[in-house]
């Protein structure tokens, strides 16, 4: 993972949950939505195609693992998964559990400020639940 450094904006807006084999896993500090982000721990990437051939299936596997865990935990009406990167160029993949009753439905969640920060204990709860759900796949 030489040269990888989390973008300052992600560092500011998110809690670090931990590391999978390829990606760093983040929790967005916005209690309106269960919103997690995968950031491949590779330097200077902005697009998925820039991943090596070995890393591409890893990203898909980790995204599916996260999505499956989120669906189990949150029983969402829909999972929104997207790599946007218009504001933060570092390659990252959003995973958001969405409900028909949530604040932005049916629109996407992006660009709907202001975020509603978690109480510390609530963020810890979200993180610990996801760590348990990911189990042994969660390496650090």
């Amino acid at each position: 993972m030489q040269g990888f450094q989390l973008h300052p904006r992600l560092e500011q807006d998110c809690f670090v949950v931990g590391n999978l084999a390829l990606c760093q896993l983040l929790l967005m500090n916005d209690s309106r939505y269960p919103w997690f982000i995968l950031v491949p721990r590779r330097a200077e990437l902005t697009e998925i195609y820039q991943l090596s051939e070995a890393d591409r299936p890893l990203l898909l596997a980790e995204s599916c693992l996260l999505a499956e865990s989120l669906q189990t935990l949150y029983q969402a009406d829909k999972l929104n998964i997207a790599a946007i990167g218009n504001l933060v160029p570092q390659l990252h993949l959003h995973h958001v559990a969405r409900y028909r009753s949530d604040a932005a439905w049916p629109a996407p969640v992006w660009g709907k400020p202001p975020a509603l920060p978690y109480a510390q204990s609530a963020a810890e709860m979200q993180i610990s639940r996801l760590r348990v759900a990911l189990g042994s796949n969660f390496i650090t």
Partner: protein
Amino acid sequence: MHSPDLDAITKLKTLLIQQNLTIAVAESMTCGRLQAALGSISGSSDYFEGGVTAYNLRQKIELLGIDKQHAEHMNSVSQLVAHEMAAGACSLFDSDLGIGTTGYAEPNPEHKILQPVAYFAICRQNRGRIENILTERVHGDGLERIEMQEHVCACAIKALLSYLQGL
């Protein structure tokens, strides 16, 4: 009104006593039904510490310490609110286990709720630290108000039984 499932409540009693665990409840949408169910058999005071029905936001904040901002934004209905209610019940009654329930017992078009939906959470307190055991979403398509309240109550009891049976 339907009677609680006495078979399930009796099994719950046996498991709680065997494992020397106490329980408390914080209810919103089930409006006391869970407490009534837990107290429906004799001897329940050995493990049932008590409960509160915190129906409005002010009471949820004052009695259970839920996060005001998040609850206001979610109209007090979310997984997090259910978790905070369960954790609040553990704290308030100093119990080993806590259950929280919140939801919409009937459609609420103002909040884009077309069918009843609810959340319940179970927390466990261990050496002063309260941890989430599970949080579930319950759908009640086509159910009437009281039916939905009873359905959520039955789901919470079933989930608690499963948890205790797995210990």
